[in-house]
Every structure is written in C-alpha cells, then in structure tokens.
C-alpha cells in the first residue's frame, strides 16, 4: 500500500474507532462495518460526517452510498441487483468486493460491501481529485 493510502487508512481507522467505540486493533481493511464492527445507521451518518471533517471534503449524495441506484428499476428487480445494476455499482464503487456480492446479488447484502478498505479506496480517489 502506498504511503498516502497508509495514512488514509490510519485516519479512517481512527474515525471508525471513535464513531463505533471499537479499539483500533480490532479494525482492519477487510472489516465490514456492519457484519464485523456492528455499525448501524446512526453510526454510518456519524462516520460520514467525521470523514468529511477529518479529510476536509464534502461527500456528495450518492457518491459513497448508491441510494438513487437502488430505486432505479433498471438496476434492481425483485430485491436483486441486475447485471446492469452490478456494472453501474462497480463503476461507482470500484473498491468493493463485487465478486463475492455477484454470487448472491440481493439488495439486502449490499451493506456487507461497506468495508474499511472500500472507504479507503473511495477517499484515495477523492483526495487525488481535490486540488491542494
């Protein structure tokens, strides 16, 4: 991992540790926020706002979490993400484990994709586009 990503990971772990009251030693890149760290909605909100403050960025609607996608009939049918939807999600959130998700593409499984590593990937790309 590059030095910049290392630094981003360190800061993300600190943010998540503070938001979820979990020891930093228990948080690593592969941890799922929901399955492994027990995050709930209020925690997701808290994490997003803390990340914005720490990294001095604004996370626009629909960028980190694909809310509009999930209500688009092209991308979700009968509670499952369609092939088109999967392609769109991969494009929007490249850092997630889409192979695992693709084996059982239930919308309700999307929450498992929100890992520490996914957030680091997102921030890494976001910060690279923000001019100093």
């Amino acid at each position, binding site marked *: 991992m590059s030095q910049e990503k290392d630094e981003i990971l360190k800061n993300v772990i600190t943010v998540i540790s503070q938001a979820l009251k979990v020891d930093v030693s228990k948080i690593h890149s592969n941890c799922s926020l929901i399955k492994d760290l027990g995050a*709930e*909605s*209020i925690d*997701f*909100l*808290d994490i*997003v*706002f*803390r990340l914005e403050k720490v990294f001095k960025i604004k996370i626009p*609607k*629909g960028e*980190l*979490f*694909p*809310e*509009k996608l*999930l*209500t*688009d009939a092209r991308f979700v049918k009968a*509670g499952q993400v369609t092939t088109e939807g999967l392609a769109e999600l991969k494009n929007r959130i490249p850092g997630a484990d889409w192979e695992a998700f693709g084996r059982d593409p239930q*919308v*309700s*499984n*999307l*929450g498992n994709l*929100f890992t520490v590593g996914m957030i680091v990937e997102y921030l890494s790309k976001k910060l690279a586009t923000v001019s100093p």
Partner: protein
Amino acid sequence: MSAPRSSRRRQACPASGVLGVDLVEFERAGEFYRSNKNCLGDFLSRSEKRFVDGSSRPHEALALLLAAKEAVFKALDLPWMGTEGFKAIRIGMRPGALKASFRLGAGLSGRLDRKVPRVLFFKKTNRFVVAAFAAKSHEMETAGSF
C-alpha cells in the same frame, strides 16, 4: 412509557407483510447530536429538524426519528442508502402529539402496495426508543406517543 390508547381507529398489524424494528440509545444519539448538530439538515427534512431543535430533549427526538426511519428501511429490506435515503423517509411529529406519520420519497413509494394499512409504533424508555414499522403497503396509521 407505554403507548396510550388512541381514540382513533387503530389498525391491526397485517397478518403477513413486512416488519422493521430499530432501537436507538439516547446516550448514542446525544453524542451524535453534540458532534453533528450542524449537519442535521443533510438527512432530516425541515419539519423533522424543527421537531428536533424545538424539543426540550433534542437527542431523544433525534433518536426517535432515526429509529423510525431505520425501521422503515429494514421493513423495505434496503441497505443503508446514505443521507439522501434517510431524507426520502419523512417522519412527521409534533411535540407532545400522539401521532407519527411518514411519507416515502420518490423511488421508495413503489416498494409498498398502496392498498394495505401500515403501522408505525414506538416505545420510549429511560435509555432508548424502539420504533417498529409493519406494512404490506402504502396506507398510514399510527400508534404511540412521545
């Protein structure tokens, strides 16, 4: 605090359908409120924000709204959809009133059948609030007080 009997007609929960339940602890909501009170507008509607800001216990009001929204999310079997997703589920409360209502924003309303009643319950204790949403469709009915 148990929900008082309403003089209004009370809808029974549908025998089959969807159910979402969520609990938010007041201590957690308090921490969140203190850190993020300037960001409430990012995920609450204007009336919801007024409900929180106008309450003598804003963290409890916030806990109720978050629990109610999350209960609806769970009933709709959706993953967390960000701040906009939260905004799309609007909870209507008046301080001291016995009624909660909600409205689904564009994109979510189609997920529920329009013809069958739905019920939003909540129960408040000293430490937390629990919200439960039961529905098979789009009609609204409420029970509970806050």
